[in-house]
């Protein structure tokens, strides 16, 4: 092993090194959330813009862009989770005997349940990928294969259980971010007495904006009936397309989704 790789191992072995990995991957994930939310907000702009956006994402850099991004995302997520779990194990080991009378001065609830909010978000992440990316539900897969991503999203959120779990996970994400965003600054050494207040406010505000943005979709779709009528029209269209495909064999689902 060369000297440089040895140093990398040593960096990963050290507590601060591992925390720096958590901070940098956390920063990546935090910025991803902002981008994801901005894209999602197109759902309120109408089906056409949203479907165009979905089409763009799937076809940027000849379809390689999204895979490049997915690999980066999974890498960041894996590092973030492995490092935090190892750190948590070390932290538990550092205090084998707990206090009989435990008390807290200033640490927030969010900061104390980071590992639990994080693991719940992980479960949500897996579900979310199966739901909207892999599309294990045949109905959602069909809508997406016909190029109706907007309709697929609306149909997904019409399920009450899905929407409730989504809102629950986003609430924990909000809690996770309220401590996590501020911690990025501290771990990267960018926080000082003068900036502490601003960082704290920014962190909480960011968490609340992400929360409000993401939950606005299931709330609108599931509880306020947003997109109900249009989804019916799209389903009718899909049925017609399917019938046409069966009859004339002129339009297979694949070419339909590539038509945009």
């Amino acid at each position, binding site marked *: 092993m060369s000297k440089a790789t040895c140093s990398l191992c040593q960096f990963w072995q050290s507590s601060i090194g591992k925390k720096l990995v958590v901070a940098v991957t956390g920063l990546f994930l935090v910025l991803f959330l902002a981008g994801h939310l901005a894209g999602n907000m197109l759902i309120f702009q109408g089906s056409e813009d949203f479907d165009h956006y979905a089409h763009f994402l799937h076809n940027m850099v000849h379809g390689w862009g999204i895979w490049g991004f997915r690999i980066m995302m999974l890498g960041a997520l894996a590092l973030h989770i492995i490092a935090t779990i190892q750190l948590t194990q070390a932290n538990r080991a550092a205090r084998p005997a707990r206090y009989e009378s435990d008390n807290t001065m200033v*640490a927030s609830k969010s900061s104390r349940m980071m590992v639990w909010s994080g693991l719940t978000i992980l479960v949500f992440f897996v579900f979310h990928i199966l739901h909207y990316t892999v599309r294990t539900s045949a109905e959602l897969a069909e809508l997406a294969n016909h190029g109706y991503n907007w309709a697929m999203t609306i149909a997904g959120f019409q399920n009450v259980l899905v929407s409730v779990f989504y809102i629950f996970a986003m609430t924990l994400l909000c809690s996770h971010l309220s401590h996590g965003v501020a911690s990025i600054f501290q771990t990267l050494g960018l926080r000082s007495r003068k900036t502490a207040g601003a960082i704290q406010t920014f962190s909480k505000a960011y968490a609340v904006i992400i929360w409000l943005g993401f939950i606005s979709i299931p709330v609108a779709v599931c509880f306020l009936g947003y997109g109900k009528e249009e989804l019916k029209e799209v389903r009718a269209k899909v049925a017609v397309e399917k019938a046409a495909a069966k009859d004339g064999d002129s339009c297979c689902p694949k070419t339909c989704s590539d038509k945009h």
Partner: protein
Amino acid sequence: MSKLNLTLKVWRQASQKEEGRIETYDAKDIPIEASFLEMLDIVNERVINDGGEPIHFDHDCREGICGQCSLTVNGIPHSKDRGITVCQLHMRKFKSGDTIWIEPFRAKAFPLLRDLIVDRSAFDRIVAAGGYIDVRTGSAQDANALPVAKTKADASMDAAACIGCGACVAACKNASAMLFVSAKAAHLNLLPQGAPEKDARVLGMVRKMEEEGFGNCTNFYECEAVCPKEISVDNIARLNRDFAIASAREALV
């Protein structure tokens, strides 16, 4: 003067190997002008008179500067009052009828010796791993010949106020020693005298800290809240930054 009648729940443990437990003591007629340690002295005298083993606890100067006293009062090291060691806590802060839980500073890196006394020599070993400067003695230069910016001198002095009591470790949910280590490192790193050995100091002290079995900082800031010298967590941010730079230099230069 009015007197207090209290119930104490005290951690008793004969030695590291034996199992510890909470024992209950009635502390009657405690004068409100007594300090917390004086209250324990009174209780101990009664225990001795009754033929029992007194409660063992660490103490020395009893004026808040030595860092020896190390009691966790109702789950908070040095009590919930800010900026004091437990010897500076007075019984007037309590009401008659209160139950007070008294426990040692708990951390794997602070092995318990007896009752409320823990071994904090891990801190000494961390300091020995870089918390010093190498200078030739006998030829010190004129004190004013080395200019130090006022802001740096102040920040260094604030960090140097650390008395090494270990409350930061005891308060941290992860038993992390980052506040102590960062204060000891910042105190020297901020000054021109400490600058030449900065990287070696940072790497040496952080590695020693990990070796001793302390936990990792997750930014709860409990340490700052209980620190009797009110050392700022700014020092931890500074240490994180210095560690990243020192690691990069070690790997690449």
